[in-house]
């Protein structure tokens, strides 16, 4: 919390912190799965406020950061094709591939556009009928339904020059992988509030039931996060392992049924590679055959790339919570937000970028 915040907020924070101090007598490691949580924790310097017994570990919840180098090289290959207009969210523009990034390709003459919404991507396709407009589909369940809607609209309108390169990922399989990883010592999870507002809590219940890893679906204000931590500590002291919802104003146990329907209709689960974590079964989303005409991978018969991880970059270990960004030898020396070596430093939600930006206050 900022020191000069309003009195009432500070009082609430103090009450929560007091309870945390009482309950956190012995070590407790919590992974915040979502990149937006990582940013909120760093920005509000929550690590400094919490007792030493609480360890907050950043997880793989930055979609840009977990995108594998082979996927990056693949979309860069596509973006360099004549007559292709690549449309993307801003986060992707500086992510380095093996040789280049989108920004450099654009400087060389490729048509690369940044949009805020898939609605804007559809508008570009309508305005440029002679161009192949390809949207780079990156994101988790929060973003996926917005892409599914765009494909559905393109199909309905017969918009044949719009397609999506789907590199989407879903959260539950990576949680399972983390829960099964012996190297990783995490007692509990702050679950992603916006992903769960779509999928609900059903798909992550197994974490609490089968793996004994309690979770709390948490919002993104400092007070939300403190309350989420309190709820996890209460579960420990009461010997419970459940998935609870702190973020009740938005996330419901059943999620958003309309959004789930759109995802289900347009996408199907596929095995996919995550940076630093390898192949995770059924953790990606491919476009169903019915919508094949809007699938850029099919449409352009794209080759599969086998790219190496960026030399020296320890993003993979950062994403699994095995090291803090500051433990990467390149951190802040060779790798900075201005000149990023790895994607964890490019995306504003990447752990390395969050640590770097708020470093004076949040680095251990």
């Amino acid at each position, binding site marked *: 919390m*900022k020191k*000069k*915040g*309003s009195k*009432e*907020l500070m009082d609430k924070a103090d009450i929560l912190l007091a309870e945390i101090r009482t309950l956190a007598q012995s070590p407790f490691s919590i992974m915040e799965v*979502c*990149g*937006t949580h990582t940013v909120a924790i760093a920005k509000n310097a929550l690590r400094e406020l919490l007792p030493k017994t609480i360890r907050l570990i950043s997880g793989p*919840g*930055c*979609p*840009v950061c977990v995108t594998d180098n082979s996927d990056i090289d693949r979309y860069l290959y596509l973006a360099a094709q004549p007559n292709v207009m690549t449309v993307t*969210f801003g*986060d992707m523009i500086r992510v380095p591939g093996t040789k280049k990034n989108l920004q450099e390709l654009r400087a060389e003459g490729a048509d690369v556009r940044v949009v*805020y*919404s*898939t*609605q*804007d991507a559809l508008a570009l396709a309508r305005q440029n009928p002679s161009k192949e407009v390809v949207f780079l589909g*990156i*994101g*988790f369940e*929060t*973003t996926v*339904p*917005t892409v599914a*809607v765009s494909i559905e609209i393109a199909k309905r309108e017969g918009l044949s020059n719009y397609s999506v390169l789907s590199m989407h990922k879903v959260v539950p399989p990576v949680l399972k992988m983390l829960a099964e990883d012996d190297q990783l010592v995490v007692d509990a999870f702050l679950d*992603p509030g*916006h*992903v769960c*507002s*779509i999928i609900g809590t059903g798909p992550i219940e197994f974490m609490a039931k089968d793996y004994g890893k309690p979770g709390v679906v948490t919002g*993104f*204000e*400092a*007070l939300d996060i403190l309350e989420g931590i309190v709820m996890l500590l209460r579960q420990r002291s009461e010997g419970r392992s459940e998935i609870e919802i702190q973020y*009740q*104003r*938005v*996330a419901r146990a059943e999620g*958003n049924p*309309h*959004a789930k329907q*759109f995802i289900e209709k347009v996408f199907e689960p596929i095995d996919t590679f995550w940076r630093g974590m390898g192949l995770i079964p059924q953790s990606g989303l491919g476009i169903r055959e019915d919508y094949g005409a809007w699938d850029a991978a099919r449409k352009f018969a794209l080759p599969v790339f086998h790219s190496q991880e960026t030399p020296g970059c320890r993003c993979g270990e950062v994403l699994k919570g095995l090291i803090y960004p500051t433990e990467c030898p390149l951190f802040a020396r060779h790798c900075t937000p201005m000149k990023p070596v790895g994607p964890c430093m490019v*995306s504003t*939600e990447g752990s390395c970028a969050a640590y770097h930006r708020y470093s004076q206050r949040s680095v251990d």
Partner: protein
Amino acid sequence: MCLAIPAKIVTIDGSMAKVDMMGNERIVSIDLVPEVVMGEYVLIHAGFAISIIDDESAKETEELLLEVAKAYEEEGQ
């Protein structure tokens, strides 16, 4: 990337709605929350309303956000 911001539905036109996002007007898609009605609060992500915010806490959320925004301003950030 999963960042989302609360907004209030001002008018609805088919699958699009005009929303008030902390004082700014925006046009967003409501394909994912077709049951939404005027005056309700929704969460906006990448130009789409992705969730209806519980009425009880919606005002509180907005107040909280405004408080936080004010606190940051005071800090000169």
